[in-house]
């Protein structure tokens, strides 16, 4: 017997999923232990092992691979507990990152602020990751052609390094202008710093992200230096703990690009772990898509405070380099998951214009929604869901935790219903509808930005709170259909099990397309491919198993942003180059509504993705039944649906007793141990061979 394990250590819970060779899955949740995350991680594994009827040592001894997702890096930044950081910049540029890195309306990341936020002066400017007196500059300058204008002043570097040592810094970032074209100055500075502070963690911008644009490159490098010492320490600690517990297999880490990497490779650039939390969601959606032959998918994940949506057109997960963390750029290629403040804990409120708003503020886990009766008096989405009869107050998280409906009603009445002149139920329905619309809009934006049509896409996902809302999100976003996976409550952990090894390598390569030198281009690709191969070899991947995908960042001459287009496999020939240029025109037209085939284009950068594909999962089929699900009926209760406009008595089914082929006609409710699925009137779900719930098309 051989197991694969995924263990996803999140903000509140650590999820573990265990799968054996026959495709049998077991999952467990344990509370995350923030003081020493390894404890919660081991606890969740222990729980999963227990479910299998074996000891943790027995299970780990038979485990070939553990994929570990951790929010450690994200948390270090969120809590300000990273390293005491020193930085060296090009002379005259120590303050570069202290200016706004994005426009004020974009500080929250991809989520656009409304214009009101621009006129709100009651906010502090985001601050850099370290104090001004620890950001030093040294004499050196390279120009835009990569030529040295002022040689590196080594005495200067030594003096600044001595100063930073005297200040007790724990990690150093070296950020020089144009270092992506001329890395020697940064590398020489590193040598000098190492002499002054042997063994100190040093991050170079030409290593972390060797591309043009100093703000993104340097900011990412500061993030890397900020998290590096503690992440490396964590990696060692978890490795040791797992080994001590009997694990002899391969440990892999989930990176923010949706791929996995060995501890050694992650340690090279620990910033790869930032915002890696939701990165595995799209992978799970892809697995479901493959089972059902669906290419165009949207992965959605709704938890307590945030709602993540990632689009997967034609089976390709999108990658973004535009992540914003606390107002600062993190420009490593990361899974393009759009997060907004919308979850079970989102608070409903009324704005100045008398408009009902839900979120982005969340009541969190503490005090939590009013119905938790832990002192929260703000009405939340969960409160509305309880009032509407979707969530059984006595069966929340499988009954582990009782909710108080009367507290939910009180909060909604006082804060929403009375001010708007609505009944409590009307107000609850409005909260439910507004949050669905908000999530729907978020999903729709994921499409419209890329020129995609929501009607071609199927929603996959859930998360703790998502299954109550997925039908509404589907209607709002206008998607083709939706699927709630059987493993919805451990959505990301499950996705991690099957993530590929994936590493991105980029470099500048500028040429007008009309003047392309194919030999030089192929030589540049060969250099990147060699880097990708070397990394995969370090991860013990055989050469014949490596996948190497080439892309080209292109623009029309004079444009300031690039579109990344795939380059056909093999050495680039004039034919494949022409094909790539054509792909650029097509992609530009789809995304922006305009293109001109005769307009001069340029290549600005090239990239290679090194891939090692994981063996796909073997799903175990569940027992088959007829279409009638009445055998799984567990109860009935009153629930309110906007479409009907009043409370209706609906059937409640036990998810674990449902069989493949069962057809569930809305309105009804399905209760799984860790989540509740609401099937509104007019919706029908069928249970597939693996226990997933698939929308079966709507009745006329």
């Amino acid at each position: 017997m051989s197991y694969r394990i995924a263990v996803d250590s999140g903000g509140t819970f650590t999820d573990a999923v265990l799968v054996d060779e026959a495709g049998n899955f077991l999952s467990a949740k344990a509370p995350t232990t923030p003081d020493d995350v390894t404890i919660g991680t081991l606890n969740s594994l222990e729980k999963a092992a227990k479910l299998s009827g074996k000891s943790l040592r027995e299970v780990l001894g038979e485990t070939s691979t553990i994929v570990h997702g951790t929010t450690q890096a994200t948390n270090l930044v969120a809590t300000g507990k990273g390293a005491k950081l020193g930085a060296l910049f090009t002379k005259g540029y120590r303050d570069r990152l202290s200016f706004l890195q994005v426009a004020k309306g974009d500080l929250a990341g991809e989520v656009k602020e409304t214009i009101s936020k621009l006129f709100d002066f009651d906010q502090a400017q985001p601050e850099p990751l370290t104090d001004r007196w620890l950001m030093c500059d040294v004499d050196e300058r390279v120009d835009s052609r990569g030529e040295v204008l002022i040689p590196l002043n080594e005495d200067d570097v030594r003096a600044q390094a001595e100063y930073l040592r005297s200040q007790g810094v724990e990690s150093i970032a070296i950020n020089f202008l144009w270092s992506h074209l001329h890395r020697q100055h940064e590398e020489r500075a590193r040598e000098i710093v190492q002499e002054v502070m042997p063994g100190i963690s040093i991050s170079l911008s030409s290593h972390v992200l060797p591309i043009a644009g100093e703000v993104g490159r340097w900011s990412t490098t500061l993030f890397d230096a900020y998290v590096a010492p503690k992440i490396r320490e964590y990696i060692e600690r978890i490795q040791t703990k797992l080994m001590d517990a009997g694990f002899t297999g391969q440990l892999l880490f989930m990176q923010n690009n949706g791929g996995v990497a060995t501890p050694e490779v992650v340690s090279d650039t620990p910033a790869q772990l930032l915002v890696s939390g939701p990165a595995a969601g799209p992978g799970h959606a892809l697995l479901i898509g493959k089972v059902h032959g669906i290419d165009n998918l949207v992965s959605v994940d709704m938890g307590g405070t945030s709602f993540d949506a990632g689009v997967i057109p034609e089976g390709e997960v999108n990658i973004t380099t535009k992540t914003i963390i606390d107002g600062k750029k993190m420009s490593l290629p990361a899974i393009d998951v759009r997060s907004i403040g919308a979850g079970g804990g989102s608070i409903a409120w009324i704005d100045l214009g008398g408009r009902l708003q839900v979120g982005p503020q969340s009541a969190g886990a503490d005090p939590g929604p009013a119905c938790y009766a832990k002192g929260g008096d703000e009405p939340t989405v969960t409160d509305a869901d309880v009032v509407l009869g979707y969530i059984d107050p006595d069966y929340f998280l499988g009954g582990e935790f009782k909710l108080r409906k009367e507290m939910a009603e009180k909060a909604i009445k006082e804060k929403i219903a009375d001010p708007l002149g609505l009944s409590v139920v009307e107000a609850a329905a409005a909260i439910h509808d507004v949050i669905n619309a908000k999530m729907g809009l978020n999903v729709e934006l994921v499409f419209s930005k890329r020129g995609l049509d929501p009607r071609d896409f199927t929603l996959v996902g859930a998360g703790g709170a998502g299954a109550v809302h997925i039908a509404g999100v589907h209607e709002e976003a206008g998607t083709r259909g939706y699927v709630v996976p059987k493993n919805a409550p451990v959505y990301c952990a499950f996705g991690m099990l099957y993530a590929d090894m994936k590493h991105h390598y980029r470099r500048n390569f500028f040429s007008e397309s009309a003047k392309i030198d194919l030999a030089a281009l192929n030589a540049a690709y060969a250099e990147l491919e060699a880097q990708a191969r070397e990394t995969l070899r370090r991860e013990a991947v055989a050469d014949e198993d490596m996948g190497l995908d080439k892309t080209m960042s292109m623009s029309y001459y004079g444009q300031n942003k690039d579109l990344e287009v795939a380059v056909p496999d093999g050495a680039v020939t004039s034919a494949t180059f022409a094909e790539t240029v054509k792909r650029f025109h097509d992609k530009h037209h789809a995304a922006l509504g305009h293109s001109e085939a005769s307009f001069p284009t340029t290549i600005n950068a090239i990239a290679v993705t090194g891939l090692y594909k994981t063996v796909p999962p073997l799903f175990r089929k569940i027992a088959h039944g007829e279409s009638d699900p009445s055998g799984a009926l567990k109860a009935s209760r009153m629930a309110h649906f906007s479409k009907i406009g009043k409370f209706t008595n609906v059937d409640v089914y036990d998810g674990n007793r449902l069989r493949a082929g069962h057809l569930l006609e809305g309105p009804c409710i399905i209760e799984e141990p860790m989540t509740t699925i609401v099937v509104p009137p007019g919706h029908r779900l069928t249970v597939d061979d693996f226990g997933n719930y698939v929308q079966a098309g709507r009745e006329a």
Partner: protein
Amino acid sequence: MVAVDRDIVDRKLDPTTLSVLWSRFDNLCDEIGERVIFGIQSFVMANVRDLGQVFLDHDGKIVSCSAYIPCHLFGAKISVKNVVDKFKGTFEPGDFIMGNDAYLVASGHLPDWTFIRPAFYEDELIGFFQLRGHQSDTGGFFPGGYSPGAYDIIAEGLNIPAFKLMKGGKYNDEVAELLYRNIRNPEQVKMDNLLVNGACEKAEEGLVRLCDKYGVDTVKACMQEVIDIGERAMRAEVAKLKDGVYYGERCSDWDGVTDKPVYVRCKATVAGDELTIDLSDSDAQCTFINSPLGNTDQSVMTGIYAIVDPKVPKNYGSMARNVTIITKKGTVTDPEYPATVGSCAISVGHCIFEAVQVCLNQATTQRQIGGSTKHCCPIQIGYDSRVIDPRTGMALSYWAETFASDGSGGGRKGYDGWTGIGTWYHMGSLLRPDIEHYEALFPFVNMKYEILPDWEGAGEFRGGPGVHTELLCRTNPGDPAFMVSGNSDGMVMAPWGVAGGEEPPTVQMYMQSPGEERRWYRTMCQVPIKSGDILTTYVSGGGGYGDPLDRDVDRVLKDVRGRLVSLERAREVYGVVIDPESWKVDVEATGKLRQAKKAPKPPARS
């Protein structure tokens, strides 16, 4: 006085639908901006976000504004109305209208072109999408439209009355040929313009989907409801202001021709929930910095919105129903043809924005904020014969700006001013480009990009710090190159301090050739620059809020340790004594010093 719900129509909209559709209107505008920023070749639109998108109703009334630069948004109240009046009854699906005429469209200076696409549902005109943005060229005697000294508006740039570049989806060949023949790098500008059309067309498709889903009547009702909510919110906010008549004046350095400051004078009258802004007493029109009506209007509104609750919806309802704006023909705030307008926004427009705030700060202390710097960052224009631009087949003609030297924002109760945010006139929506992107395109190297110590307006909450930049010219000897400060202002009047906060110093600039004396350089100028020359700028920080002697000592310590404030200034201005060895505050000495400094002060300043 309490706000009166005048003319309130019950449109029978449920709160969910209203909330959803309102967000969708905002988003349609945002998406136009995102597409355009992605694809546009204009350096300032792509890298600096020098654009703005607005959604208006069938009558040209603003429904919703995106979170972009206010000067490209609120001016639509006048400019789109002018265009709608011109073409009333002739709009058809697939039209795409553009124009920049300072007197006919009246939105502002010539390089900011206004684009309007009517949006139809089936055959019904539902509304308009407007985008206004800074083109990389607009014709005229120098590229970029920011060169002072044009003889008249004809010399300053091409005057384009609103016309249909696309008529019913068909490209208007003849007019377009005439237009682009008079523009530098015509292929680029043309493609940029068509890209805007593509982006607006996609927004129109989005609006059609909304009508399909919610019903066209519901969408239209929501548009009007949103406008009414804007009015109610603005009336409620004006009612909170103290009734009275208030005066304020601010000045621009000069117009580049006549050597004297140019004043904007504002009289604000608050009466119940009605607000009147009267600019009639401003200086007579001059050259270069005159503000066309649309620009004047948007500057007033930006000033008002900065004082009232930020959540007041920015639309026709809050702009036009209880706010009256009075100007006098022949003044800098309402110039007559053919006066030039090149720097209307950053100079006179900015002064209007400030003067309105100076007035209204007397009517409320709710949202006082220290003044911010004006825009100050000279432009580079010229040819680079070493680079052949494949779009023209000729030597690269450039019009460049680093946006590195912009100063900072003012302090506000509870918050220090924002570092290098530039003018609050743009509300933080202007973005600093990467210097590597700038240097990749233009033959200049930015050698210094730093905070300037001791140039903040002191205060309990200080203004943001000053900014120090040095730009080295590396042009090809023999290629013409100019440094243009027509877009810069702030040498005469510093940003204000409030509630006892102080003013920062005013702006300074100089040029220096290797081995030569400094040549002090003024705003509103254009001078040749040659390889090896360095332009140095010292730009003000923001104005302070509150007495600097009340500033939290730990904040002072942090500023001193970070060398934003010198030890001497900490002692003299903030009354804080710090030991630079241990980085500790001498609490006792500080207490005594602050007491001594406070004692001789005259009783309460007004």
